[in-house]
């Protein structure tokens, strides 16, 4: 009795304390020199750059009135890592959970953060935009002033890592998705940045434990991160508290977050280098002028000299996140009810452009946002066919254990992000090096694999080159969720699948119905709000759906055979003519030579006349 009263009181207390954070944001363009070397157009928020950080407490409500201030581009916003339970339409990916917001339109992202704590970020989910600066941190405190955080610390600091290009996505994407980029080489960034600048100075106090929230908000390269002579104790990854794990170096892929505890030294006489380093194995080529290391400064004493760049002997000793253990010690979920197996590869289609594929399908947006197809399909909603044959859509039943097996046939590392969930990373194979002649290695279910008892949980994880991983999660969040490579270039190439989770549960939930604002923005961009992927009301008629280009035919086509036949024929005819000429009798060789030779011999004959 007492307990229940106490519980009620606590709940009430929370509700009373829950705040509403309202933001009015208008996108736009402005020129900023972010990395101190080049001024370029960046996406601004109300004319300012960088975008503001959001800091709320668990249970608070966030209301973002996002106005598209561009003149020629649509936009959307995604709060990365938030579960959005019952609020799928606030998740952000265009043509998945909502229509794109047309220029001049405003969409209200209105959601509470009930189930997430820790380090998150928000970014545009419209292709290329977050690389142009449309992104910011989203920190969710666990209780007021983060009082429920499980570990002690004195001060809190956050550091946002990224790479930076001197060209806009608008310039980079067309040359990336081009016949003349046949290997799909990702554009090479010009710099690594930190908190939207270079060579940051972090003033620290001695003998203080800092909670350092690290985010990689880049769109491409993973970064190694270390601080000279300081170790870091990982306590949170992607919003999941972990058991303490101390390391000298972190490896952070794009979209991953780490919270680490750093205790400063007693001695304030010296300053230390904060190092970022490209994972240069991800770069197609390394231009001479590219600085692979970026140095920032952990400053104990501003009058002491700035630290020199810090070197390490090896990059191999970074923390392998596979071995992290969640603070809550969630046991590995049981055997899966459903397994999705994805084979990742990159290939060129008939136009010569390089695309990314899951099971030979490169994600091609449907004509109707998938969530709206779910809501309008009635009982057909559990049939994946209606979501289109080119969208890689999988339908999941409610509250099942799902295994997602990913076989990477590509020789690159890829960081994968699942919307709306954290997953358990139950298996990750070692890299298989193509330079050593190793072949891609697919996950073999028939072999026995020992999964960790308490697998690491997070929302973004990388797969090794030519390797595989297995993610396990519960389908406990009805909605339409993207699972995609978080390298923005690979998103452009279509490295995405869609999970329709519990479609009937979505239909029956009143909060999941598209609100008026959501329907209005569709009207502006001319997208219908019901029908299958092709926009047809007959759900099993996909005529007119968006499809990928054709594959390149293997071997000889008709025109190749014609070309080779003609070439052979020409060769044979030529040789025959040659043989005919060669074997032809020459009746008067001397005369011919006399005719052909044109050396001035006349004088000889003239001379010889003397003797006759």
């Amino acid at each position, binding site marked *: 009795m007492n307990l229940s009263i106490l519980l009620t009181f606590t709940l009430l207390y929370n509700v009373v304390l829950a705040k509403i954070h309202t933001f009015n944001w208008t996108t736009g363009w402005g020129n900023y020199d972010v990395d101190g070397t080049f001024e370029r157009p960046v996406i601004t928020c109300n004319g300012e750059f960088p975008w503001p950080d959001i800091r709320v407490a668990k249970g608070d409500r966030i209301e973002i009135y996002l106005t598209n201030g561009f003149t020629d581009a649509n936009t959307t916003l995604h709060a990365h890592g938030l579960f959005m339970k019952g609020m799928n339409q606030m998740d952000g990916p265009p043509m998945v959970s909502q229509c794109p917001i047309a220029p001049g339109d405003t969409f209200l992202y209105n959601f509470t953060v009930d189930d997430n704590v820790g380090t998150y970020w928000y970014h545009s989910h419209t292709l290329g935009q977050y690389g142009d600066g449309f992104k910011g941190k989203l920190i969710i405190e666990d209780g007021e002033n983060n009082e429920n955080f499980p570990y002690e610390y004195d001060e809190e600091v956050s550091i946002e890592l990224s790479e930076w290009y001197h060209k806009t996505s608008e310039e980079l994407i067309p040359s990336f998705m081009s016949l003349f980029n046949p290997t799909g080489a990702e554009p090479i960034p010009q710099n690594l940045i930190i908190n939207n600048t270079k060579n940051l100075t972090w003033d620290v106090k001695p003998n203080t434990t800092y909670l350092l929230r690290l985010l990689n908000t880049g769109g491409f390269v993973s970064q190694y991160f270390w601080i000279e002579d300081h170790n870091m104790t990982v306590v949170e990854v992607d919003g999941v508290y972990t058991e303490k794990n101390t390391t000298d170096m972190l490896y952070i892929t794009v979209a991953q977050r780490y919270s680490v505890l750093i205790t400063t030294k007693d001695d304030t006489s010296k300053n230390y280098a904060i190092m970022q380093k490209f994972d240069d194995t991800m770069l197609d080529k390394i231009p001479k002028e590219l600085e692979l290391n970026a140095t920032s400064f952990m400053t104990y004493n501003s009058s002491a000299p700035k630290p020199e760049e810090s070197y390490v002997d090896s990059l191999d000793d970074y923390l392998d996140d596979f071995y992290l253990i969640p603070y809550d010690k969630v046991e590995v979920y049981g055997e899966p009810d459903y397994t999705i197996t994805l084979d990742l590869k990159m290939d060129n289609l008939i136009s010569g452009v390089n695309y990314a594929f899951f099971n030979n399908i490169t994600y091609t947006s449907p004509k109707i946002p998938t969530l709206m197809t779910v809501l309008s399909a009635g009982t057909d909603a559990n049939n994946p066919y209606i979501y289109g044959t080119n969208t890689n859509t999988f339908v999941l039943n409610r509250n099942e254990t799902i295994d997602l097996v990913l076989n990477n046939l590509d020789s690159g590392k890829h960081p994968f992000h699942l919307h709306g969930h954290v997953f358990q990373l139950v298996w990750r194979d070692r890299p298989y090096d193509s330079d050593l002649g190793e072949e891609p290695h697919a996950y073999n279910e028939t072999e026995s694999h020992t999964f960790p008892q308490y697998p690491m949980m997070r929302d973004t994880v990388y797969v090794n080159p030519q390797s595989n991983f297995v993610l396990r999660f519960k389908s406990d969040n009805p909605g339409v969720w993207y699972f995609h490579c978080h390298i923005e270039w690979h998103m452009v190439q279509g490295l995405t699948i869609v999970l329709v989770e519990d479609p009937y549960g979505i239909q029956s939930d009143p909060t999941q119905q598209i609100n008026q604002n959501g329907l209005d923005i569709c009207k502006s961009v001319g997208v219908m709000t019901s029908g299958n992927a092709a926009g047809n009301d007959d759900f099993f008629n996909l005529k007119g759906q968006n499809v990928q280009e054709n594959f390149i035919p293997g071997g000889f086509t008709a025109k190749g055979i014609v070309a080779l036949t003609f070439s052979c024929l020409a060769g044979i005819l030529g040789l025959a003519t040659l043989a005919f000429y060669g074997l032809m009798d020459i009746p008067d060789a001397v005369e011919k030579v006399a005719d052909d030779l044109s050396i001035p011999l006349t004088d000889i004959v003239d001379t*010889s006349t003397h003797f006759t």
Partner: protein
Amino acid sequence: MGNKVFNVAVFFVVFRECLEAVVILSVLLSFLKQSIGVKDKKLHKKLVIQVWTGAATGFIICLGIGGGFIGAYYKYQKDIFGSAEDLWEGVFCMIATIMISMMGIPMLRMNKMQEKWRVKIARSLVEVPKRKRDYFKLSFIAKRYSMFLLPFITVLREGLEAVVFVAGAGITTQGSQASAYPLPVFVGLIAGGLVGFLLYYGASRSSLQVFLVISTGILYLISAGLFSRGAWFFENYRFNKATGGDASESGDGNGSYNIRQAVYHINCCNPELDNGWDIFNALLGWQNTGYLASVLAYNLYWLCLIIVLGLMIFEEKRGHLPFCRELKMKHLNPGYWIKNKKAKELTEDQQMALLNKIDNLEFDENGEIINELNNAVTMPGSSGSDRDSKTDANKKDAEVKTHIFEE
């Protein structure tokens, strides 16, 4: 693999040049046998030794020069061509095509080649310096060792020509290395020598002709392939320039070539990467991507060759090009007009006179030529009608042939 140890183009160039040198030798040896062979065996032997020494010395010198030349080329090649490699490979392919095309057809006319050398050699043997003072310079040595100097200079000249050809043809083969030279050069020399041997010791003329037809056929297959490869390299260069990398070296698969220009493509058999296919590439110009340009180039090459051969056949049968009674093949060569060769051409009678002179060539006991004794030369115009001299010429020709092929 093929490019590392055996460069096919090099083989054929060496073979061809060797053949030419061998013809010179055989012509010279025939001369000697004819003029003194029976009269003075000792002198004959001495002169034969001179001929061989001259040829050998010339050969060794140009082998040295060739080796140095090629070595130097490969030493500096990277620095010179580095980034524009495909463009240069294309240019070299085209140059090699032209060179091989030009030298291939004359090879088919072995007897014509022999005649050419007979006349050339005859000229050098009987030539009388115009200025008196020249006698006091090298004349003694020159005269005494003419049977050494003549083969020495001709072999050296042919050899240097071969060096230039070899360098030109060799570097056009993808990934060719200096190590790809010795073997084809060696084999080319042996093959050329063998033909010379057969030539001198009387293989039947028709079987020799068949042999020449086959080897010339292969030479033109290579040449057509080179032409096609030249076009391919230009296309590849264009694509690589646009992509900023060398796509074709990254593999066989999609993206390794410009699909919009491709007529066919197969994901294997890349001559740059797969063993075995590079030989196919060197011989026939095979590429696992057929670009429109390279396929067209291949077909057009053969078309042009067929047309040229057709014109030559016509000319040999009728004495002029079709539709133009006065026009001959050589008149189409701009050099013919520039050098004003027409004025210096030998008339048939002069030709006859020269050959007669040669047949009556005599040597003194030192091996010196006594050309003053020549009294058989008939003045042009003084030997009756054209018709007679032509008959004589044919008769003479038949005799010469007999000498060369049957002795």
